[in-house]
């Protein structure tokens, strides 16, 4: 009887042990994926623009999967402002939990992050060679002699024009090669008159046009040290603002205030040209019906500024690795794709029209291929040749802080304030704010 009791007890213990074991096993299984110890790794990437940046990342993911299938790349799309906010919040809080492994940062802002949080980013000198990339990209992406960013797209600017509208107004594409902004305004007036279409769109909150103009003259909101505001007495800026005012007064501008309207305007054929960065190519080509109606010409120059060239830059961004768990995997991922893979850049050019800044990539076939959408123009090689001419400026830490001031002051200038007063006010505000 005693024996039986023991057996009974033992079997009960076994039973309960079994059931609790299975529970444990389940919990264990549940825990495994979250741990980063295994060979399987997961990294997160934050970027904006589904078609362009995210699209490029998707290709990078595909390319890398062939080399290392153990790495899972999560792409998170956010608005650029959201990314900036979240990144600031995360870096300020000091916890790295909410941060991604890789983040896309616009070149204009890069220094503000690198200088404010140098320890939060992972230096990539061991992974990439800065001299492999276009020189003007190194300034914004490096800090204290260390390379932090993997330069991605070139922001080389051009003037996208509707050849059919121009033709209607009596112009050919050749007429728009190497013109000044003043000539552009004249053409715009003709177009507006003949076709009823505006020449370009403008968002009063985005002074990209002015930035392109001053960079084409080798000038910027800040002096070369990247810290001192350079608004008052900045001849190039004054010329740019005057040109801007002329443009606005000409009645050839369609005023917009958001991205959708911007894209909508040229997709619906409301405007005849887009002076902007090459990254707009994908959005332009999204409206397939307009194939053959577009051409890209060099950016106009400032008529009264001698140093102004037919090349400038707008936007352009680079990939940064944050100093969090998984940084090596993330760096390795970037090295194998954006960091050195020239073939990969051919894919990017062909598939989404993203022009990289890896020098070796320019020698690839895809860069010299004609684009039927742009009437057979070899747009990529054109952009590449303009890239070489882009004057190198130091965007510094405060580009957007000054831009915010400028938006207000430009508004005042448009409403009739004196240019010098406006610039003087802006200078004062900038100096007090930046210090």
């Amino acid at each position, binding site marked *: 009887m005693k024996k*039986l009791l023991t057996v*009974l007890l033992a*079997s*009960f213990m076994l*039973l309960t042990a079994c*059931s609790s074991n299975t529970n444990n096993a389940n919990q264990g299984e549940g825990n495994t994926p979250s741990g980063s110890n295994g060979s399987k790794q997961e990294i997160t990437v934050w970027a*904006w623009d589904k078609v362009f940046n995210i699209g490029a990342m998707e290709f990078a993911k595909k390319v890398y999967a062939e080399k290392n299938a153990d790495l899972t790349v999560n792409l998170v*799309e*956010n*608005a650029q*402002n*959201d990314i900036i906010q979240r990144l600031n919040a995360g870096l300020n809080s000091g916890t790295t939990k909410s941060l991604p492994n890789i983040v896309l940062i616009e070149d204009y802002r890069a220094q503000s992050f690198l200088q404010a949080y140098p320890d939060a980013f992972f230096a990539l000198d061991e992974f990439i060679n800065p001299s492999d990339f276009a020189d003007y990209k190194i300034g914004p992406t490096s800090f204290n002699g260390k390379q932090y960013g993997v330069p991605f797209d070139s922001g080389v600017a051009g003037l996208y024009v509707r050849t059919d509208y121009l033709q209607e107004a009596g112009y050919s594409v050749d007429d728009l090669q190497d013109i000044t902004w003043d000539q552009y305004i004249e053409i715009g007036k003709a177009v507006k008159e003949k076709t009823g279409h505006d020449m370009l769109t*403008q*968002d*009063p*909150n985005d002074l990209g046009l002015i930035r392109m103009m001053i960079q084409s003259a080798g000038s910027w909101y800040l002096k070369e040290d990247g810290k001192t505001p350079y608004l008052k007495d900045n001849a190039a800026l004054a010329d740019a603002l005057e040109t801007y005012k002329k443009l*606005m*007064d*000409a*009645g*050839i*501008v369609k*005023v*917009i*205030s*958001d*991205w*959708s*309207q911007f894209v*909508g305007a040229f997709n*619906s054929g409301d405007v005849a040209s887009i002076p902007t960065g090459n990254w707009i190519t994908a959005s332009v080509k999204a409206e397939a019906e307009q194939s053959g109606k577009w051409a890209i010409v060099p950016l106009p120059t400032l008529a009264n500024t001698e140093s102004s060239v037919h090349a400038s830059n707008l936007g352009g961004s680079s990939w940064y690795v944050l100093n969090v768990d998984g940084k090596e995997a993330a760096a390795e991922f970037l090295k194998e794709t954006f960091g050195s893979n020239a073939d990969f850049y051919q894919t990017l050019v062909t598939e989404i029209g993203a022009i990289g800044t890896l020098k070796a990539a320019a020698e690839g076939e895809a860069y010299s291929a004609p684009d039927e959408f742009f009437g057979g123009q070899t747009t990529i090689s054109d952009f590449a040749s303009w890239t070489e001419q882009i004057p190198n400026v130091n965007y510094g830490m405060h580009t957007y802080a000054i831009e915010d001031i400028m*938006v207000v002051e430009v*508004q005042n200038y*448009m*409403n009739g304030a004196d240019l010098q007063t406006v610039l003087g006010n802006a200078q004062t505000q900038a100096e007090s704010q930046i210090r």
Partner: protein
Amino acid sequence: MRLKRIAEKLKYHNLFIKMFSITLVSIITVAVLTWFVMIRISEQVFMDTFSITNGKIMTQIQTSAEAMNYAVSMTASNANISGEIKRFLTRGQFTTIEALSSHYKVTQEMKRLQSTLASYPIAMVVIGNNGNRHATDTTFWPPTYKGLNEHFITEQTIQSPRKLHYHIDMSTLDGQQNEQAVIVASKAMYEQLSGEIYGVLYFAIKEAEFKKNYSGFTSEGNDVLLLNRSGIVVSSNVTSKLGTTEQELLDYAKQIEQQGEKYINVDWQGKQYLILSTYLPTYDLYLVNTIDKRVALSQMLDVKTLTLIIAAIVFISLIIVFIVSRRITRSLTLLARQMSRVTKRNFGNYIVVSGSNEIKEVGKAYNLMLDELNEYIAELLKSQKEQRNAELSALQMQINPHFLYNTLASVKILVQQGNKDKATATINALIELLQNTIGNASEMITVKQELVNLKNYVFINHVRYGEQIKVNYFIDEQCYDFAIPKLIIQPFIENAFFHAFRGQADGYIYVMISREGSNLVCEIVDDGVGFDMDWNESMPASKNSSHFFSGIGIRNVNDRLELLYGEGYGVQIHSSKGEGTRIKLLIPVSVSKEITKT
């Protein structure tokens, strides 16, 4: 044959089978009933708790959803009274500079308004009748402004301008994951006084963000859906259901609303569901909580483990029952088998006493009974033997009166003839014979005495019938003192005298007594006519009793010897016609002290 044997075997296990099957059935029944009742009760309890907690959760969801709605409607009314926005949306003609200014101001105004919504990732879009528009964020909505004026959402809004409408934008659905789904709240912008509509304000929020209001409360089988009045799913943690029409659910929700109940139990999509619903008046949406009872229960109540434990308990108890009842019935079966082996006249089969106490007692009692039975039988046998013995010895004691008066008649004749000596000898022989038979009370006598008796008897017979038949004695000398039953040889001599020599003038009878090992062998051989052995009648019967000496005939000798000495002893007769008869008596050697004394 086999079947029969199995049936035979089963017969003995009948008890066990009955006992075990009854316990088996009852244990399983009890287990199943317990299981069933337990599951049922806990189901009930879980369901009750579920409906209560989920009811509270619903209130919580409602509160947080309404907080959001409050922010949205506040922003909407602020936007409606904003002169800057109104100007932006109503003025017909702008110069570029004015347009720039207006756009800039609206941007600032919208930013200010949006700060009310700071805690929600909501994008605001405003469109005026004049075609002017602005969006605070266009990354997720609208996909394009094209067709927005003719959009279903816009049309609805214009129809009832004072209401804040919540919709799901169908164009953002991909029908599967619906990750890009956007919920749009819209309100018309109108003149406060005239009520004239000059624009539409949209609030776009990713459905993924909106459902954070409640997604923390959902779990597998416990889903939340927001349905509009047409039954379209505006938001749900089940993303695949977004934009689909759930007419049935809507009906349930309306039923709950009308009957004022908190929840109802329904069969929906072939499953048991507990459905809770609240009408969100500010949203004009039904907040529906569906709980798949089975899934919800399976999370709370591990039916599998429970079943396994019960099954294990049943299994173990069945093993115990099997072993115990097997042990009990085994001893019973054994007892029954042993008892059944006690057949007729065989009372020596004692039972091995084993098993439980009760069984032991029964076994002991049975053995005691057998003991007593055997004792009685032994006693009975003994008394019967004694009776027979007494009978036989009585017969032994008897002297046939015929023999007496025949002998006396012979003596009388001798006296008459004057043969005085012979008469005296005869009388002496008779006296000695009578003395030895009647006078000597003891049953056993020595061979010597028996020999004397025989000689006296033979002498008397010679006197009566003449001396044609001679009797010779060959006695081993060492045998003289051995004890034999009285008058055990005499009947055979008598028989030989009167039957063996029929039709013969003379003959011989030999009496031989010798020892063979532990046996005393007495042989009476004659050379008379003999007879064919007739086995039906082992001893020839004599009709004339006048010549008999005593009551004991040859017929009884065998009985007597067997009675005295047991089987293996007795009389053997060999005879055939014309060859005489040989009779052999087998008696164990014994020397009686009493006898030697006398």
